[in-house]
Each structure stands twice: as C-alpha cells, then as structure tokens.
C-alpha cells in the first residue's frame, strides 16, 4: 500500500488568482478508495512505449539556442530515497525570451529557431537524468492581474506504479517572482515548496549547474503487491 500524502505538501486544488482552477477542480470531496493490484501495478518498462527524444536542447555552434547555458541534473528517487532506474522523464520549458514552442502560446515574445523545448529522458541506474539546455525566461500570464510566471521547467515522471505518476514544475533559486507565483505557492508547506526549487551548484564548467531531486510515491519493492 502507498501511504497517503500530507495535503500540506501538495498543491491546493482551487487557487486565488488562477481563474481556471475555479472552473476545473472538482467541487465534491475526492473519494477515498482501496488500493488493489490495479492501482499498485503500473506501466513497467514504459520506455518501450515512450522512446527517449533529445537529451540536449541547447545545441552547439551556429545552432546554439539563445540564453544562459545550463545543465540540469535531476535525480528520481522513491520515498525511501532509493533511485528509480528506468524512470521516464518528460521535460519541457519555454525559451530564454519566455516563449513556448506550443502553437497555443500567444505571448508576444520571439521564437528561437535553434530552440525546441521538449525532451524525453530515461533515468540511469542512479535515477539520474541530465539535460543540457538554456535557462527559460519569465513570461506574463494572459488575462491575469500582473501575474508573471517565474522561470520554471515542467517535469512529467513515471515511477514504479500507476499511483506514482508525478507532473510538476522545477523552479530556479533566487528568483523574485518565485515568492509571488500562484502555482508554486499553492503548496502551503514552506519546506515542501522549497524542495521544488533547484539547487545551484558552483562549478568551473562553462554552463551553470542545477541539481534537483524528484521524489515519486512508493517505497522500493514494497510499492509492488508481490
């Protein structure tokens, strides 16, 4: 059985200042259900269906994306701190000017022909995925009263079982917009919130290094029924 999570460490469903949440989060209480084999198994070996694409979003030479070169080292672990090798991780973020590759992004910021902001990675034995990219910019949220999204990177992660699925966002340290962001601050617990911010790692490399830990639900083999 997977232990229930502490709600204070998870986002609120309805968030002041984020209008869509009032249209979309259920009004009725969520139903507590028993966990059976159906919820405690999961798509194992999902990389079979979701093949890795692009491990480097920054490019090189004349094809180098604009912006500050960064290196994200994200480690996927379970609630025991044990690495989750083979975890599939999808990553997407906007370019250095705050523009996504998505056709629905109406933000009046320039596209970068050398930047395509989507990658799918598979964790190695230590649960580590590494992404070379450029630091995303901030951008204003349409039809909001001055809400700017701080620089952030979206993560979509598969753990060991169906209930381990995690979609979240990684933030950068020292960004003044972090304190005002409706999404980051929807997590009430300050420590849980702080863990959504990557750690800057001083280095002599020609890129900035950020470490980030992703904890998916499950406790080692105990997450399985057998």
């Amino acid at each position, binding site marked *: 059985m997977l232990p229930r999570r502490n709600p204070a460490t*998870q986002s609120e469903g309805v968030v002041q200042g984020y209008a869509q949440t009032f249209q979309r989060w259920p009004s009725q209480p969520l139903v507590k259900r028993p966990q059976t084999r159906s919820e405690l198994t999961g798509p194992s070996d999902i990389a079979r269906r979701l093949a890795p694409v692009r491990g480097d979003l920054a490019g090189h030479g004349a094809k180098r994306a604009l912006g500050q070169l960064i290196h994200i080292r994200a480690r996927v672990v379970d609630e025991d701190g044990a690495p989750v090798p083979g975890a599939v991780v999808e990553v997407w973020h906007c370019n250095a000017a705050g523009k996504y590759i998505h056709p629905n992004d109406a933000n009046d910021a320039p596209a970068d022909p050398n930047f395509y902001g989507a990658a799918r990675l598979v964790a190695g034995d230590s649960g580590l995925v590494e992404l070379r990219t450029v630091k995303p910019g901030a951008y204003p949220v349409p039809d909001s009263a001055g809400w700017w999204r701080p620089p952030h990177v*979206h993560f979509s992660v598969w753990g060991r079982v169906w209930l381990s699925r995690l979609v979240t966002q990684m933030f950068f340290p020292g960004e003044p917009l972090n304190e005002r962001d409706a999404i980051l601050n929807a997590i009430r617990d300050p420590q849980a919130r702080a863990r959504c911010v990557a750690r800057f790692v001083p280095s002599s490399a020609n890129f900035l290094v950020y470490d980030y830990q992703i904890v998916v639900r499950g406790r080692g083999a105990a997450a399985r029924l057998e």
Partner: protein
Amino acid sequence: MSLVPTGEMTLGPFFPREFAQGANDLAAGVKQGEVIEITGRITQLDGRPLDNLVLEIWQADSEGRFDNANFFGWGRAATDANGVYRFRTIKPGGLEGRAPHVNFLLLCSGLMRHLQTAMFFAAAEDPVLDAVPAELRPRLVAGREGTVYRFDIRLRGDGETPFFDD
C-alpha cells in the same frame, strides 16, 4: 529514510503536442481480446469543452491480468477543440474481486494536481466502485453502442464525475 513525495503542479497549457500524440491505440498488434473504442467529452464548470487536456489510462488485459507481455495496458490521448478524446483498446477482464474497469488520470492547465477516476463497463460489485456514494456510481459506468463505449467526464458542476483521492 523517509522522503516526502514532490508536490504535484499543473501541466500548464503548453504540454508538447508530440508527447500527447501517438499513444492512444493499445490494441494495435494485440491478438487476444475484444477490440473496443472508448471515447468521451470533457467539460468544465461553465459547460465548455476542454481542449488539450491529457488523459492517461491503465488497464488489465482481456483476462484481468496486469503482467501480460503481449499487451501494454497503458495509453495516452489528448482532447481536441471539442473536448473529445478517443482510445482504441482491448476490453479488460475482471480478476481478484475487481470488475472490469479502466483507470483514468487527467492532466490539464488549471488542474493543480492530476485527477484520478475509473470507468466501468457495467454496474457491478467492485471495491473501488463501492467506495463511491451509491447515487453517483452510474456516472462511472460507460454508455455503449456496439463496440464503442462512451465515458464523458465533467470536472466540476452539475453531473460532476466522482474522482479519487489516493
């Protein structure tokens, strides 16, 4: 060591289209079981359909098993501008006290955490369906026309779909 699971956050409006496509046919190349289609429309409080909402499903094979090397019981689809999604799959069997069902997970801009629900093929005794208040259970049972099962999802408001807290 005991670590706290990372906080979920919304998928946002810009989930790459290439990730949302090409994974909604679970039946391709599968020889065992009845091929069916599951489709439905997803709406929000004001009744408007949701475009670009991502659904993931997890289900058993035709015999109720989750460890069939010849059937990968996971799929993903996204809604179109009319709020409609579509999966092609194999009708799952029931096993170990569970009635045949398909687990659904929903991700969307404005959903701070993913939503979990389940679709059933008929009203039946099932420990998960039984956890839902009796008057709401019919909302988790799909309509049927031949081999097409219809499962509409209402995120909030009248006729709201029951969702699970795990």
